[in-house]
């Protein structure tokens, strides 16, 4: 997802004043060995938490993914290879011939943190509540037409149309299974009117009701999230007795907490900081991630000086120095990305990587009669995400486009302002980011294709501008629904090529992720499901 309820403040200048004050305040407690240091079974994680909710059906953020896979279990999970699905609450599952019916058999051993067994009614309640709350992640289960519970340990989910990625969707953190009795008792509702009737969010901010390795001990917004090991955990107990996620807004502050021992793991250190601040006792690794940053062009934006025709969009794409962008944003700790689908996802093998060709770009602009140049607004959220500073990235793009006489008027804005503008008047050129919610390319086709209903079709002004609709993408998305699993990658590949041809989304950077942790911590890895699987962490 790209959605961040509150802009992670790492890069925003306004927050830096606060950060400076906080850094001064931090200096004092860090001088003393903190309680966390003394206890070997407590792991402290420094992170800029972007939590919008702790309610599994309302949450929608990167930190939510971590929490929802620690305190809750899903029916299935993405395995350690970050691709294949492995059993979790569902010990086994079957898909009907027509792809419309999924039968899950629950693990008989599975229990919630209060000791009660995980039953079919809990699955039904959780998935229906997610759907009916109509929140950020509800689209994952939109295709469900009904859920049947023939017995306490069997769930049959019926879909209204085949969806080859349905299992992927329920494996996402938002497919968390809640204890239906407990949540109902505290105002929870899964009925069709749940979006107005449900009152459980407040209670879920103070308690968890899952079967995961940890339970929520306390949550103080903008301060810390404290998890304790689940005493009734039904799988192998986690090593850590307590995990504390502590709010720390920028890479430098996180690195300093790591060096002083105030934190065991820092989650948002950028490659430059990691390189220069290397310290004894601290391990930093660069690992490939599925995150990416892109710029997007909106032909339907208000106030365009020159129409963003296909040729103008192609010229803009050709004017960008892609290798240079990687170098300037991450010092080279990143990969190129061809289409708005992460490298390594189905259908991305051998996609043609973008290349700079200034001569051709100039010729295209000349053909369109705008070779003399024009200027264009480029508004983007001012933030530092996955180690990339958007202001740095956009200044590089600005510089590249001057070579074809296009002048960018850079406007860094807050995330909230950006969201309003991109949805309202639309922004001629913008920059933003995306991280997967599960392993599968369908989420990208749904998000970035120029088809009615996709968020970027709306943001690019598909309703206002002529010729943005891509009927081939529509056909392909329809085809993949009923295609055999082995045919899907070829179809996704074609969808990716269509998205490249649309020239609305120009992917730029697939940054490597920095894992920074103290040497005595083990089990730190990047997981597609959940960023950081907390149950695998240990400390000696």
């Amino acid at each position, binding site marked *: 997802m790209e959605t961040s309820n509150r802009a992670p403040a790492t*890069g*925003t*200048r*306004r927050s*830096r*004043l606060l950060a*400076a004050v906080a850094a001064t305040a931090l200096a004092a407690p860090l001088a003393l060995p903190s309680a966390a240091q003394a206890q070997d079974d407590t792991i402290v994680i420094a992170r800029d938490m972007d939590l919008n909710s702790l309610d599994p059906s309302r949450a929608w953020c990167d930190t939510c993914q971590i929490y929802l896979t620690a305190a809750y279990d899903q029916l299935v999970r993405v395995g350690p290879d970050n691709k294949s699905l492995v059993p979790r609450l569902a010990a086994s599952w079957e898909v009907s011939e027509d792809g419309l019916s999924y039968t899950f058999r629950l693990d008989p051993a599975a229990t919630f943190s209060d000791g009660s067994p995980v039953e079919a009614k809990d699955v039904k309640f959780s998935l229906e509540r997610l759907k009916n709350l109509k929140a950020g992640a509800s689209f994952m289960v939109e295709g469900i037409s009904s859920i049947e519970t023939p017995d306490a340990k069997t769930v049959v989910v019926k879909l209204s149309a085949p969806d080859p990625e349905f299992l992927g969707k329920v494996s996402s953190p938002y497919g968390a299974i809640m204890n239906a009795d407990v949540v109902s008792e505290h105002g929870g509702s899964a009925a069709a009117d749940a979006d107005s009737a449900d009152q459980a969010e407040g209670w879920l901010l103070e308690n968890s009701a899952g079967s995961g390795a940890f339970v929520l001990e306390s949550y103080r917004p903008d301060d810390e999230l404290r998890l304790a090991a689940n005493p009734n955990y039904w799988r192998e107990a986690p090593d850590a007795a307590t995990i504390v996620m502590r709010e720390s807004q*920028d890479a*430098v502050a996180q690195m300093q907490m790591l060096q002083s021992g105030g934190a065991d793991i820092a989650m948002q250190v950028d490659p*430059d*900081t990691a390189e*220069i*601040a290397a310290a004894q006792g601290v391990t930093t690794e660069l690992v490939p991630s599925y995150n990416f940053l892109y710029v997007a062009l909106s032909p339907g934006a208000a106030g365009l000086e020159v129409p963003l025709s296909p040729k103008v969009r192609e010229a803009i794409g050709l004017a960008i120095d892609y290798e*240079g962008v990687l*170098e*300037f944003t991450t*010092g080279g700790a990143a990969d190129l990305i061809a289409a708005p689908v992460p490298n390594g996802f189905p259908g991305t093998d051998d996609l043609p990587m973008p290349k700079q060709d200034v001569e051709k770009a100039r010729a295209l602009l000349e053909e369109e009669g705008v070779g003399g140049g024009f200027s264009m607004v480029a508004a983007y959220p*001012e933030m*530092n995400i996955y180690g990339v*500073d958007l*202001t*740095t990235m*956009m*200044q*590089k793009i*600005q*510089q590249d486009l001057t070579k074809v006489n296009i002048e960018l*008027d*850079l*406007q*860094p804005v807050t995330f909230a302002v950006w969201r309003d503008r991109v949805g309202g008047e639309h922004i001629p050129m913008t920059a933003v980011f995306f991280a997967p919610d599960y392993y599968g390319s369908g989420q990208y086709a749904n998000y970035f294709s120029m088809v009615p209903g996709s968020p970027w079709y709306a943001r690019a002004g598909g309703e206002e501008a002529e010729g943005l609709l891509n009927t081939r993408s529509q056909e392909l998305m329809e085809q993949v629904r009923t295609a055999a699993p082995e045919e899907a990658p070829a179809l996704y590949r074609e969808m990716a090529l269509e998205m490249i041809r649309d020239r609305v989304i120009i992917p730029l950077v697939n940054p490597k992720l920095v894992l920074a942790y103290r040497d005595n911590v083990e089990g730190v890895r990047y997981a597609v499901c959940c960023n950081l699987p907390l149950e695998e962490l240990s400390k000696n």
Partner: protein
Amino acid sequence: MIASPRLRIPTFGLSGGTLPVALGLLVIAFWVIAAATVQFWPLDPPLDMVARRLQPPSAEHWLGTDALGRDVLSRTLHGARFSIPIAVLVVVAAALIGSLLGALSGFFGGILGAAVMRLVDVTLAFPPILLAMAVAASLGPGLENAAIAMVVVWWPLYARLMRAQVLEVREREHVEAAVAAGAGPFRTLFVHVLPLCWTPVMVNATMDFGQVVLLAASLSFIGLGATPPTPEWGAMISDGARSFYHWWIAFGPGLAIFVVVLGFNFVGDGLRDLLDPRTD
């Protein structure tokens, strides 16, 4: 009596009072000349990116390079093109607006005078940085808007100062004589009163140049002033804060702000000593 040994600092014939003034003038002269002519200096263009990003200071890049490989020294010197004119513009505009309103308020009094002074009170009740932030945020980012915001914050100081001066001067005998001789109110104000009120405004204005440079940089630092890629000092320090361990990125503009503010303060102090009859 044996004189205690004293460290002697060469003063080049300048007394302890005038040395800082001379230093200040030198510094200001340097930055004013830089602001006017830096385009023609043999420097890297301030917006040119090179592959050598985040380089520490070296013979080639005296103050290193930033995250986009731009020469920090070049950008710092180019920063004068923004900070110095803005400081002049804001101080002159605030002094003119404030003095005029203050003078009218002091000379005529009445409802107009009271209204102006209450507006002054209201404006001064806000912490300057907060008011400037609020005005700049509502106008949108950009140096022009930041300048407007600073004028809004600054004029009341001059209004209050000028009003106090006018209240005192208008009671003097020569003013009464002018009125008795038939001078109209505006002639009296502009010819007989105002020329005697300028001194404190001048001194204050000189001191304020430095403060305006500082406030402009603060607004840019929090993202309400210069927009990228403008090499404005506050914006550059903000870039530097993002790459905290690469200290040189913030060092250049930080040093520039420090030197400029100090220079204006020295000159302002000297000017006050020179013009204010109450000091020795």
